[in-house]
């Protein structure tokens, strides 16, 4: 079974080499004459004036959480879909109950307006 994943491994290896080699080459071959201006943080033409760490709107967090929940929901659908014929009506009904419970949440967040940005 693992032989099937060899191309993926190869791909990861090539991606690593493609990412690392230019950096290493630049470090070894390129000239190094740093000065104050070159080492200063660059922010699109003007002085960098504040910390990168700032307060986000909590709304981003809500969207991310809702994304994770539905991501998990579809993760459960994959194994179900490929064995649906073997587990029969019982398996089908159990997944329908699962989906029904989550649809309650979906309706709730839709009605609450959690999916709208304003």
């Amino acid at each position, binding site marked *: *079974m*693992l032989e099937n*994943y060899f191309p993926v*491994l190869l791909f990861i290896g090539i991606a690593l080499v493609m990412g690392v080699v230019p950096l290493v080459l630049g470090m070894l071959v390129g000239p190094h004459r740093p000065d104050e201006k070159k080492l200063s943080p660059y922010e699109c033409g003007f002085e960098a004036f504040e910390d990168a*760490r*700032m*307060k*986000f709107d*909590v*709304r*981003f*967090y*809500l969207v*991310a*959480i*809702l*994304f*994770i*929940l539905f*991501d*998990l*929901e579809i*993760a*459960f659908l*994959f*194994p*179900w879909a*490929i*064995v649906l014929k*073997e*587990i029969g009506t*019982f*398996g089908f009904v*159990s*997944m329908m*109950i*699962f*989906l029904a*419970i*989550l649809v*309650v*949440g979906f309706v*709730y*967040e839709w009605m*609450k*307006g*959690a999916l*709208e940005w*304003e």
Partner: protein
Amino acid sequence: MNFETVLFYLFAAVTVFAALRVITARNPLHAVLFLVLAFVSSAGIWMLLEAEFLAIALVLVYVGAVMVLFLFVVMMLDINIEQLRKGFWQWLPLGGLLAALIGVQMVWVLGADEISAGTTAVKHAADYSNTKELGRLIYTDYVYPFEIAAVLLLVAMVAAIALTLRKRRDTKRQDVNKQVKVRREDRVRIVSVPSARQVESVQEAAASNHGHTAD
């Protein structure tokens, strides 16, 4: 030592290194990125165990979604790193005690007879599918935990909305529901305004006004 063993040690070494960097990195953002690396290399180890669905779910759910959330939280927290490092020596004994406890637990569990070093992974046929095995079990034998998982997700959804959703007063929001439901009586008010008066009466009124001001 075959190729699979080499791969295992490679992934395991990367996992251990990344996990160490998670707790030693000065910048919390770097710690989060190292945690991503630890997850990816753990997915590699699971793949070696032929748990392909779990490996891909780990990358999809943890790396793709949970770590994004971690990054949000780290960015939102506005942490002062100097402040965080202040109580290091003060809390070291308690932390050490907890670490020792966890260590003992791990030795206890991993040293049990069921998971002794002698057991090796079962070799499966070429057409063995871990995803199918999971599917056969989750939706039939483990149906109650499965439905409880749905309830947990529902609770998380409702809790997240209840905690973070707030209506902003200063934005103009279109509510289609309200727009459709609105009726004529809500918007239109008929007022009977007397039509224009005659010119004489206006002049009389002006005259009487004058008289008042003269007094």
